[in-house]
């Protein structure tokens, strides 16, 4: 039964690994505690330097990893963190072929965004604090992706959440206005709750460790998952769903996506780093990490796929009508992560990671581009007041265009390959004895159409046509050289990044080969779970179809927005209202969740505590006792005596329980 040898690989000690993680922490501590005393130059040197060094070290380690026998991984066990009974949890990290990709993306994109930030935040008084938070985020994110077991991953999971709140609220000087942070906070707590409960269940069934890889095929989570799949499939499904709920919180999926668009309140580089490239994809990474568990639960996978597809469509339709440049990108992010989740749900883990990577490139580029625009226009974010910016911001314009082409899925840009991989899996992947989820495929295709449309709507309205804002701003609009370089690098990656995953019929899918030791068993060999079509014709047909879809969307946007007079928004149409108001989800949550919660809290305080406990039980019973003791003096008890009365009532309750109820 519990044979998981197909997931077992050898470990190699890595001495550089701890430094990759510690450097950003060091930077955060230095800038956080002493940043006020440093010059801006020193702060930048520490902040950027620590991350760039981590990137260089990561590159060295990944090169080393590539030289190892296929499937082996680098790891370091710092020390035994704690042990409870037979459960041993080590403070340990690993770079395997999956985390290597994340590591390169996070440190690489992270470095670029740090560089970009030195320009973007130049005039901000909280410069050192900003870099301290950003470095702390990098540290947490590295914990998350390099953690060798679920608990270390959870440390990072909580850490990135905390940094995210700190950075969302970076510019808010008082809590009342920082509602965005609060919202992110509350929705993420829901996700974390599910994550924690899932962890506890796994803890309970664990074979002495919560490692993602077992030693010699035994122990670790793979064996737990195998055991659960064998003996308690219901429990396995429950655990998967709980972890998926955790992922919906962090990765902004239905129903917990509402925080992400509001999180755009933070500085734009933060949006690029945290809310586009890295943190929000943590949920997808976590599910890929736990592929050996998710793959075993048919029900959970179906839920994942359907939720992902619905999110992709839902967010894309909202993106159609948004007028805030960052809001459009935010909904686009939600939608794109929906694609990745679809991919996980249909068994295309490689596709999910592939899209995660390409998305990190082009979406970071888009966000940084929007940051460049916002910076140039003195914090104007309404695309109705932009236009014609290609004249003022040439670098931004070209990089933005490239990224738009990539996200829309125009051939040979990065997004084309990764999105097609996902759609191909959605259309053909299936388990033994069941059919591909065509519903998911169709919904995804519609979402892709919307994506192409709204991205080019955004591009046309921002960079083409005539400028529609005030003259003064236009005259001062310019690009910061230091901010251009990251854009160019990211745009380059968005252009060529897709070639690591050429279509299957070419048999040159480098990424799939790279990840073969981790995901390969799902498709081939005796443990195989998913079956994918190998028909080259079908693949080409699907590909042509999605290119057509993308072109259709772009053409539609061209028709509507590439002209002198912009179309009047059909503000009275019911669908427009619905979309403008984001399907009234916020209002729905407000009515169904937030207000009742708040009401319950205040009810507890005012009614339950003050009236019922204090008034009825405490005072009331005090009066009763008082009436017995001294019939005349009903109304004489102060607060202390109410407390004592509570004690007496408590004893009475215990006696009743002991005597009559047990």
């Amino acid at each position, binding site marked *: 039964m519990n044979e998981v040898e197909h997931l077992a690989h050898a470990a190699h000690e890595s001495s550089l690994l701890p430094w990759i993680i510690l450097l950003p922490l060091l930077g955060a501590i230095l800038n956080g505690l002493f940043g006020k005393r440093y010059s801006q130059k020193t702060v930048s040197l520490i902040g950027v330097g620590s991350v760039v060094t981590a990137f260089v070290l990561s590159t060295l380690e990944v090169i080393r990893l590539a030289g190892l026998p296929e499937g082996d991984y680098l790891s370091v066990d710092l020390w035994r963190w704690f042990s409870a009974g037979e459960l041993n949890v080590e403070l340990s990290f690993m770079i395997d072929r999956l985390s290597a990709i994340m590591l390169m993306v996070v440190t690489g994109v992270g470095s670029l965004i740090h560089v970009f930030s030195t320009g973007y935040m130049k005039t901000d008084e909280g410069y050192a604090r900003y870099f301290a938070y950003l470095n702390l985020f990098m540290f947490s994110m590295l914990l998350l992706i390099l953690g060798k077991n679920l608990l270390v991953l959870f440390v990072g999971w909580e850490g990135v959440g905390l940094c995210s709140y700190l950075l969302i609220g970076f510019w808010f000087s008082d809590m009342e206005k920082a509602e965005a942070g609060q919202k992110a906070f509350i929705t993420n707590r829901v996700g974390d709750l599910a994550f924690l409960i899932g962890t506890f269940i796994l803890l309970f069934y664990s074979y002495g460790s919560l490692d993602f890889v077992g030693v010699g095929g035994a122990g670790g989570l793979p064996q737990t998952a195998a055991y659960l799949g064998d003996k308690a499939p219901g429990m396995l499904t429950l655990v998967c769903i709980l972890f998926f709920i955790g992922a919906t919180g962090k990765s902004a999926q239905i129903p917990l996506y509402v925080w992400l668009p509001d999180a755009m309140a933070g500085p734009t580089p933060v949006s690029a780093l945290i809310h586009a490239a890295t943190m929000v994809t943590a949920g997808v990474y976590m599910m890929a990490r736990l592929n050996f568990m998710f793959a075993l639960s048919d029900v959970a996978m179906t839920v994942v796929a359907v939720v992902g597809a619905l999110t992709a469509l839902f967010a894309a339709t909202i993106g159609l009508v948004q007028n805030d440049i960052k809001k459009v990108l935010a909904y686009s992010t939600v939608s794109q992560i929906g694609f990745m989740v679809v991919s996980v749900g249909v068994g295309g883990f490689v596709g999910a990671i592939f899209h995660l990577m390409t998305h990190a490139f082009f979406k970071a580029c888009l966000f940084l581009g929007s940051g460049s625009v916002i910076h140039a226009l003195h914090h104007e974010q309404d695309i109705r007041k932009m236009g014609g910016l290609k004249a003022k911001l040439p670098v931004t314009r070209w990089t933005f265009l490239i990224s738009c082409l990539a996200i829309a899925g125009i051939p040979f840009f990065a997004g084309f390959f990764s999105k097609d991989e996902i759609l191909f899996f959605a259309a053909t992947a299936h388990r033994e004895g069941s059919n591909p989820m065509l519903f998911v495929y169709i919904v995804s295709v519609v979402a892709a159409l919307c994506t192409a449309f709204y991205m080019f709507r955004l591009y046309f309205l921002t960079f083409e046509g005539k400028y529609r804002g005030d003259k003064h701003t236009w005259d001062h609009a310019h690009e910061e050289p230091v901010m251009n370089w990251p854009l160019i690098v990211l745009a380059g990656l968005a252009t060529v990044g897709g070639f690591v995953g050429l279509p299957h019929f070419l048999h040159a899918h480098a990424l799939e080969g790279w990840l073969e030791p981790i995901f390969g068993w799902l498709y081939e060999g005796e443990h195989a779970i998913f079956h994918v079509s190998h028909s080259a014709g079908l693949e080409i047909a699907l590909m042509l179809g999605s290119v057509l879809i993308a072109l259709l969307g772009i053409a539609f946007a061209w028709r509507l927005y590439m002209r002198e007079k912009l179309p009047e928004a059909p503000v009275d149409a019911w669908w427009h209202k619905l979309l403008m108001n984001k399907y009234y989800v916020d209002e729905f949550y407000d009515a169904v969740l937030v207000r009742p919660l708040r009401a319950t809290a205040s009810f507890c305080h005012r009614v339950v505590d003050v009236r019922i406990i204090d008034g009825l039980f405490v005072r009331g019973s005090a009066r009763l006792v008082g009436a017995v003791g001294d019939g005349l003096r009903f109304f004489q008890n102060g*607060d202390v005596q109410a407390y004592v009365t509570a004690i007496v009532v408590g004893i009475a309750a215990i006696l009743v329980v002991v005597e009559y109820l047990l």
Partner: protein
Amino acid sequence: MLTPPLLAAAAAPAAHAAAQQPAIPLSWYLAVALILFAIGSIGVLARRNALTVLMSVEIMLNAVNLVFLAFARFQADMTGHVITFFVIAVAAAEAAVGLALVMGLFRHKKAVNLDQMSALRS
């Protein structure tokens, strides 16, 4: 060999104790003690004057002393008596601190009523 000096004859056999049961049954002592304890509790719960509350606590402690003595007597065991001494001493210390606190309260409020202390609340 290991008989503690103060707590000598601690574990007397129950049968031995039963032979010399006094005329008044144990339950009567306990009833009186519990009534006293209840009177004390009601005093703490219902009386407004801090000094009265203090006295009520003393009544409660003495009620417990009665319980100890009753049990000690009926089990022919010294432990209960010894405890009573300790309780008396502790009660004195408590009363001393209590009186000092009442004086402190009086300094601030010019009164010694408990219902005047409600500045601290949620």
